[in-house]
């Protein structure tokens, strides 16, 4: 067995699977709906060409489809380069992301591209020119289900503006999270009081852009007019997100900001970080 599933304690090891996969693996233990997937750890990528892993990857994707009853497996394929000390390396060509990759063959192709970007002669030449380390890098690849988000949100378990730890702030907008994270849309804002989960304030914005998945990638498009000023979350969804943020805050014993999304009526947890800048 060469693959490591998300949530498997072995994938908590940053040096083996990279920071993102390690983090997601821990989250998958705390919340049941983290988009599922697997890592090809550095030990595997170091020894085998992705094409040698074809059967194993195909079987894993088939397992995921069965397990989650999916008609297709739509994936995000990401590489991360890992230093020996476990810190994520930060040089060019080491973080490849392929979004909206559908089916085993296309996924294997994307993994191959990640591999080539790190190991090919061309990649090594490039690093040499840039004066970067030409030591053979340690590369891990994460293959994860891409959730077709109807609404994406960033949730702060403490109000990042006022610094209040009694409030939760939610920024939400239509489509995938890129438009919120990238700042190309003014999202809806909801403030929830932790003590009684009351929504104390909400501002519904004129949301002009959204990121959607299109065949072979993602694309930022205009939000159709009828939807722009509609609230992206209903009260129930706001409260569910607030509860998730509070749970994670308690578990991690620190205020957190999380990325999450509703897809098909279910709340998915996509990312969780500690808030370090709180006043």
């Amino acid at each position, binding site marked *: 067995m060469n693959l490591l599933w998300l949530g498997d304690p072995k994938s908590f090891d940053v040096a083996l699977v990279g920071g993102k996969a390690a983090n997601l693996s821990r989250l998958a233990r705390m919340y049941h709906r983290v988009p599922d997937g697997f890592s090809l750890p550095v030990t595997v990528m170091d020894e085998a060409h992705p094409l040698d892993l074809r059967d194993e990857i195909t079987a894993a994707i088939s397992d995921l489809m069965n397990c989650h009853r999916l008609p297709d497996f739509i994936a995000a394929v990401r590489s991360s380069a890992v230093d020996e000390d476990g810190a994520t390396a930060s040089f060019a060509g080491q973080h490849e992301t392929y979004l909206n990759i559908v089916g085993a063959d296309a996924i294997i192709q994307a993994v191959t591209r990640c591999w080539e970007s790190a190991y090919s002669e061309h990649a090594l030449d490039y690093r040499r020119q840039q004066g970067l380390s030409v030591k053979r890098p340690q590369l891990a690849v994460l293959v994860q289900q891409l959730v*077709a988000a109807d609404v994406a949100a960033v949730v702060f378990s403490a109000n990042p503006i006022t610094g209040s730890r009694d409030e939760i702030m939610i920024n939400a907008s239509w*489509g995938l999270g890129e438009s919120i994270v990238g700042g190309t849309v003014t999202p809806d804002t909801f403030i929830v009081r932790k003590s009684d989960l009351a929504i104390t304030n909400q501002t519904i914005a004129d949301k002009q852009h959204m990121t959607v998945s299109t065949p072979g990638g993602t694309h930022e498009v205009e939000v159709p007019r009828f939807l722009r000023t509609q609230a992206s979350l209903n009260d129930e969804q706001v409260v569910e997100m607030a509860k998730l943020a509070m749970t994670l805050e308690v578990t991690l014993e620190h205020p957190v900001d999380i990325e999450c999304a509703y897809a098909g009526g279910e709340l998915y947890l996509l990312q969780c970080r500690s808030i370090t800048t709180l006043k």
Partner: protein
Amino acid sequence: MSTSSTQAPTAGQPIPTPPDFPVVWDDPRDAKITWMLNDRPKTPISLLAYAVVGAFMMGTVPDFQRAGLPISLRLTRVNTYSYFAMAPKSAPPDVVMKGIGLLNRAAPGVFNLMMGKMVGGMSKKTEAFLNPIVERFEAYWLDEILPEVKQHLAYFESSDLRGMSLDQLRAHLAETLKRVERIGGLHGVIIPSAFALDQFEALYCELFEGASTLDALRLTQGFDNKILEGDRALWRLSRAALATPDVYAILSGHAAVDVIPALEKSEASQPFLADLRAWLSQYGQRLNSAFALGEPSWIEDPTHAIEYLQADLALPEPKPEMEPAALVARREKAVAEARLKLAGYPQPVVARFEKLLKAAQTAVVVLEDHNFWIDQRFFYHVRRLLMEFGGRLAQAGTIESASDVFYLTPDELQNGRDVPMKELVKERKAEMERFSHITPPPKIGTMPAFEMTDGGTLMRVMSKGEMGTPNTSPREANRVKGIAGSAGVVRGTARVIHSLAEAGKLQPGDVLVAKFTLPPWTPLFATASAVVTDTGGVLSHSAVVAREYRIPAVVGTDYATSTFHDGQLIEVDGDAGIVRVVVEEQVHEPALVG
């Protein structure tokens, strides 16, 4: 709609009338509002037809009011022509119009603000009324509107006109006029139809960058409807005729009016004649237009049907891409492409798209099927009743012939036992004859005190249908610019057709040029290579049917019938909405250039 080219009177001023069209107002206040000529048809209308059409038009008012139009409808008949006026619902129209006109001149800024607010409010009301209907549009049509229409038809079908006494017929007439008013209300289903298509098209164009209205409408094409079904059944009859030498000889060797007597005499033609009669009883319950009550139905006089049949004989087998399965496949491919593209979009977008797609697909069928059930069948039954009434009066010697009944009012028919009917008929016939030779002014009364440039959502949506919008392109000698109604570019010989009586001159490959087209004209679309009209928008009958026949169409040109004439080789660009003369007076075979 085209307007008169004569000097335009000033806003708020009385409209001068030509010497051959004197106007005397019973109520002087009526002279203070604007009356528009009811130009379908632009011919004198008999008193009885006016009463029926009037009841129908009044019946359409409640739906327009519910849809946010704060007006009521006024009708009048001047010099045998029918005129209508839109009047404010609450206050006396002349006072309101004058007041608004004054404000417009004194404080245009305030006026514009007020009008903007009013139009905005109207649009909100329109959307609040129509959106819930569009949400459940298929059920609205199939479970609410259509069953009630069929109930009215069943009422007529079960009425034994011959068995009724004259008094019973009088009661039946009163009941019929009530039902005509109600059918006017049911005919209002075209408002949500147009709205559904408008909303779908707008969303589609928003979602798919660079898409045109016609691209959006591709997803609604290829559904069968009752009008196309009738056309197809007639075409199949033409194939049967081709396969039966005796029938073929009669159809190709006789004028249309002589065909049925000849078929009756031919032993070998009997099975065909039976099929033809079956077709007529199913699809011939129609008048030349809904309001042409004074003209015979196709059952009474099947000449037009025979002409179409004769034209169909000359047509080749339909192209493979016109097969229903191919049309369905073409649509489904477009739908599948759209769905694939939207697969990664947020669920509310996909849900709205699917809802509007379904509503628009229903709407495009309703735009034709309502014609079959209401404009054709319902008015066929109204004419039957009126003719039965006339027949009785003629039998009793009260009038000369059955069709003289049209020169009498419903009131005279119901209560006028002592009215000198023969004299009235004679007088009114002469009056209609006299006025049939003059051109009625398009507007009478007083010029509007202000022009409403933005009529709000309802007006915008309705202008995509038969109503159309005024053409803003300058008038040119050899070219017209209209609305792209159906895609494709084709060249063909122009044939300007003013009425069904002229339909015979259209040869395969010709371009049909008309003021507008009515459902009974659709078999012409199989013969024509393209369609060009003066009036109507992208959802008008002409454009809808041209798309189903997959021939180019340019609609709402205002000037086509007055720019082109028979025999010119013209090019119709259904994508750009442009029609131009290629060669004067030269007859060419049609050539597809795009």
